[in-house]
């Protein structure tokens, strides 16, 4: 049964949250203030790990899509959908943290610099994936169209990156980090990656459960309005 009360998954989430708290503590007391940008640079420790994990989620969509196109098992489609949901979430967080950073560092919420454009286009790509799904009625057909879209979208990611290279750039690219900054960055990367994996897994299980509930059981039509009998073991 999902989610179980005991076992590996609650332990995984406990460790993730503990590590996240640890990383937060490290950020508050240990991380040095950067010389040129000042304190705003601290957004970086959330921004970069989330942005990197976004690509992880995108590859999960790809893996799920290829798996579905190959084997036609609905579980692969659940995985691809879970990946897309988490990818959109991570991309939103990347955009939001990036915009707050940009507002402080450059004075604008938004500029059409390559990486911002890239993140926005990626966000659109996977939001459309999620939005298109409900408008295809047949589950098999939906899974198939989504799988093809998921595959093409993944191939599209490097192209999007390449195309944004044509725009003028102000985004910091190579970062020189002191050892203390590296420690903080790694301390944040680990729980964020675990969080991504946990979210994808939880969504995967939920998508499967929703699909199971939709296909196996007919809708319950209430026949009377009396309160339901209390359950026997209660």
């Amino acid at each position, binding site marked *: 049964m999902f989610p179980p009360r005991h076992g590996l998954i609650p332990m995984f989430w406990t460790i993730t949250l503990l590590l996240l708290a640890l990383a937060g503590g490290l950020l508050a007391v240990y991380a040095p203030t950067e010389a040129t940008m000042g304190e705003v640079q601290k957004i970086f420790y959330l921004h970069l790990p989330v942005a990197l994990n976004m690509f992880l989620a995108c590859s999960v969509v790809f893996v799920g899509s290829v798996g579905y196109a190959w084997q036609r098992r609905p579980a692969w489609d659940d995985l691809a959908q879970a990946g897309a949901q988490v990818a959109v*979430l991570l991309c939103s967080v990347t955009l939001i943290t990036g915009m707050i*950073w940009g507002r402080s560092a450059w004075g604008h919420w938004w500029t059409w610099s390559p990486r911002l454009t890239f993140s926005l286009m990626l966000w659109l790509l996977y939001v459309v994936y999620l939005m298109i799904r409900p408008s295809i009625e047949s589950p098999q057909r939906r899974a198939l169209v989504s799988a093809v879209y998921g595959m093409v979208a993944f191939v599209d990611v490097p192209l999007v990156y390449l195309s944004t290279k044509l725009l003028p750039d102000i985004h910091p690219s190579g970062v020189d980090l002191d050892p203390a900054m590296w420690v903080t960055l790694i301390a944040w990367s680990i729980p964020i990656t675990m969080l991504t994996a946990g979210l994808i897994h939880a969504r995967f299980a939920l998508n499967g459960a929703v699909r199971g509930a939709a296909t196996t059981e007919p809708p319950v039509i209430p026949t009377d309005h009396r309160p339901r009998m209390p359950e026997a073991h209660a």
Partner: protein
Amino acid sequence: MTGHAAVIVAYTLGLCLLLGYGAHTWLSARALRRRSRGRSV
């Protein structure tokens, strides 16, 4: 916006979104489980 405030806002929003999504997933799964258990009784 000062640097300090920007950092606080960014982390609060970011973590709220990430953890909130996790909590939403967990609650939906729980609701679904309860509903299907209610049906089978």
